[in-house]
């Protein structure tokens, strides 16, 4: 069926809104993004399908992911007139009991209670205020918190991630049910390209891929240049530790397609490309399905909705090169060539892919666009700070209690993300730093955790907003090793065509490796700083110019760690193997024997209930005993 107008959409939307919110059956939504699947969601899904295969009153469905990765697999159960309940850690052996428990309204049974995460107060996205809250008339279950009040969700505002976890990513109809494609069709029939561009400009949306360039201005300049214009979506997501884009593509691929369609309309282009990282097979699969469905409804292809507008999207996959996330390298890669960045004497908006005007944006940038068009620029601009409007998705990972994917309004302080939403660090470990911006970013110490999430403010402390990876580090993270780690990464990923980057990174890495191995010399720190400035100033592309950031910020904020590596030959974090020893604290050791049993080298001996002894000659510092001891009796010296 070809959709011609918003009216056609409204019909399907109405039907699927009911299915999504007031189903005739018991609806079981299982979060099936990569990370959920890795945690066992597929087995959970299959177990439920098998058990209830003949039961028409239970519908087992897949959704994307609401982002609380820490407690996956996540399962939501709902039925008309009943509370919607989100359950955590639902492995395949638990799902059947939990479904039965929900149907019998039995939420106090211990077996079920411990899996309850919360009940949903309002399942509508910010785009669905035209509908009443379907849960309004439902009495909540007593003694169960609302999901929206749980620390991880409190304070989140979801625009880019609005549908992730609330619909089946393989169903375009459910996307219609969530207000999908209305913004595009409305713009197609009623807006001039210039009006769309103005709205995007006024929303204040800036590119979410790292650079933060104002999206509206980019669109306007691209539209000004004549030629066969292309619209490209950058889904290369190379920052190791960031997976916002994966989650959007796996949880709500149509939002990106709709964003690209709107860009095509505004800029005057009929050619769309999505360049996806090779490591994301599920994202590719969901995109392929989404493109087929949109084509079947006539939302992609020729003469869309009976107009002159044509738009097609091709998916290309990367092949494991971080530098291909850079715009000119990405375009070369799309042309089937090696991805070596070009100097930008001429901007890609004028001459990019195939030497024609090209507009490149990030996945999250496109996902925001339909929301802006539907709700208006002032609405979007009402979130955030003066120069950073809207919301930003982050992947909160590393040494933090609540790992996962979250979206917050710009301007909230970093410490709220780590300590309120993330609930701080697990165990008794002390916080050391948070790293933003990946290999191009920096490490922000505790003293600066009041810094708000804002492009300028993050830059002023030496880091960057980046694409949204936020890695929490504790006292067991060695900051010299972190700097070494990023340079090691960049040494592998530098395309090698310019000297400052290729040789500068290699030289800095050699110095850092020597420091980590206990061979550091006086003057090394100053040399690293000098090299850093040179690499920053003379490299050709963003990979090189940002490469020294992790080194320079760790020197700036953690200089004493460098000094103790170099002067005292000590790594207090217990990471650099030549610079520390594990010792057993006789007073703390209870003689539980766990460490002796686990040590692969048989380096630990002792009798039960007596303090144990560790033989330094045999120890290879694998850390197994350190992690295993429950009494903090193994210490780093």
């Amino acid at each position, binding site marked *: 069926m070809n959709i011609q107008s918003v009216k056609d959409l409204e019909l399907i939307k109405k039907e699927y809104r009911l299915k999504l919110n007031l189903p005739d059956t018991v609806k079981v939504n299982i979060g099936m993004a990569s*990370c959920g699947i890795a945690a066992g969601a597929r087995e959970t899904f299959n177990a439920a399908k098998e058990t209830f295969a003949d039961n028409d009153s239970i519908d087992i469905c897949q959704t994307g992911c609401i982002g609380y990765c820490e407690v996956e697999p996540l399962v939501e159960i709902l039925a008309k007139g009943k509370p919607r309940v989100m359950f955590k850690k639902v492995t395949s052996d638990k799902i059947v009991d939990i479904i039965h428990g929900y149907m019998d309204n039995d939420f106090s049974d211990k077996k079920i209670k411990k899996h309850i995460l919360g009940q949903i107060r309002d399942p509508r996205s910010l785009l669905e205020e035209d509908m009443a809250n379907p849960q309004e008339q439902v009495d909540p279950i007593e003694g169960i918190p609302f999901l929206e009040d749980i620390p991880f969700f409190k304070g989140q505002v979801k625009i880019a991630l609005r549908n992730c976890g609330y619909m089946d990513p393989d169903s375009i109809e459910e996307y219609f049910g969530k207000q999908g494609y209305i913004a595009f069709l409305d713009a197609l029939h009623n807006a001039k390209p210039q009006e769309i561009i103005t709205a995007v400009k006024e929303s204040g949306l800036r590119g979410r891929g790292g650079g933060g360039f104002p999206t509206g201005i980019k669109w306007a300049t691209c539209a000004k240049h004549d030629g066969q214009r292309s619209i490209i979506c950058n889904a290369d*997501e190379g920052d190791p530790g960031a997976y916002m884009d994966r989650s959007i593509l796996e949880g709500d691929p149509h939002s990106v397609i709709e964003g690209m369609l709107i860009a095509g309309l505004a800029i005057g282009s009929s050619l769309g490309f999505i360049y996806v990282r090779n490591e994301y097979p599920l994202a590719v699969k969901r995109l392929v399905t989404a493109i087929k469905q949109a084509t079947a409804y006539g939302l992609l292809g020729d003469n869309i909705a009976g107009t002159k507008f044509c738009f097609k999207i091709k998916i290309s996959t990367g092949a494991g090169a971080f530098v291909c996330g850079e715009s000119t390298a990405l375009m070369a890669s799309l*042309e089937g060539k090696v991805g070596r960045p070009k100097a930008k004497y001429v901007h890609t908006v004028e001459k990019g892919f195939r030497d024609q005007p090209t507009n490149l944006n990030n996945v999250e940038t496109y996902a925001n666009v339909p929301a802006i068009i539907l709700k208006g620029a002032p609405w979007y601009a009402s979130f955030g700070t003066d120069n950073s409007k809207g919301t930003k998705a982050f992947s909160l*990972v590393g040494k933090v209690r609540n*790992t996962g994917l979250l979206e917050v309004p710009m301007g909230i302080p970093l410490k709220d993300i780590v300590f309120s939403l993330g609930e701080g660090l697990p165990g008794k470990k002390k916080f050391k730093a948070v790293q933003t911006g990946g290999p191009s970013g920096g490490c922000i110490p505790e003293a600066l955790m009041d810094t708000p999430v804002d492009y300028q403010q993050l830059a002023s402390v030496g880091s960057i907003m980046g694409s949204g990876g936020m890695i*929490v580090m504790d006292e067991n993270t060695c900051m010299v090793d972190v700097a070494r780690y990023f340079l090691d990464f960049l040494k592998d990923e530098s395309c090698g065509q310019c000297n400052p980057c290729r040789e500068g990174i290699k030289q800095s890495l050699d110095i850092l490796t020597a420091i980590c191995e206990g061979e550091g010399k006086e003057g090394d720190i100053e040399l690293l700083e000098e090299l850093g400035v040179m690499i920053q100033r003379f490299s050709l592309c963003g990979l090189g110019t940002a490469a020294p950031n992790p080194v320079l910020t760790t020197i700036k904020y953690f200089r004493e760690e460098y000094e103790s590596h170099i002067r005292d030959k000590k790594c207090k974090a217990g990471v650099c193997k030549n610079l520390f020893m594990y010792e057993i604290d006789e007073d703390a050791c209870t003689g539980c024997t766990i460490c002796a049993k686990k040590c692969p080298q048989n380096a630990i001996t002792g009798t039960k209930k007596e303090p144990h002894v560790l033989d330094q000659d045999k120890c290879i510092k694998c850390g197994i005993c350190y992690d295993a001891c429950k009494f903090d009796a193994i210490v780093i010296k």
Partner: protein
Amino acid sequence: MSNANTQPTGVEEEIHYLELDQMIEKEFNNDKENLIMILQAIQRRYNYLPRPALSYVSEKLSIPYSRIYEVSTFYSTFSLEPRGRNIISICTGTACHVRGADRIKEHIETSLKIKDGETTEDKRYTLESVRCIGCCSLGPVVKINEDMHGRIATDEIKNVLNQYE
């Protein structure tokens, strides 16, 4: 012309040329721009990029062999050598790094006696490090073939590896 570098086993890989030809035409429209995806398809089929297949692509698409070689060595997912029956991808992304991925990697390297990028003599395992597979919350993560093993501890590795013949 010696194939010593690309064919260390000394066995010439048997290439199904008709199939290759059809794939290039049907799936990839004989289009040079699709080179990277064509190479990916070849690697999926043969587990690596056999030299004769690359020569065929070069002829078929009129791309100089040197450029195909350039592309297949620039991108890290391509391998010009046959790989093992099981691919162990250890994530060394930042989130996994701060959770001790290096220790896991060392442990695998010493127990299998191979380094990153190498294949065991019996061709049972190839070890490759990857930077982030997007499951950072489960870190440290090891992916073996298509299976994800999250929150893996050093002392669990042996059992996990033994599951793969």
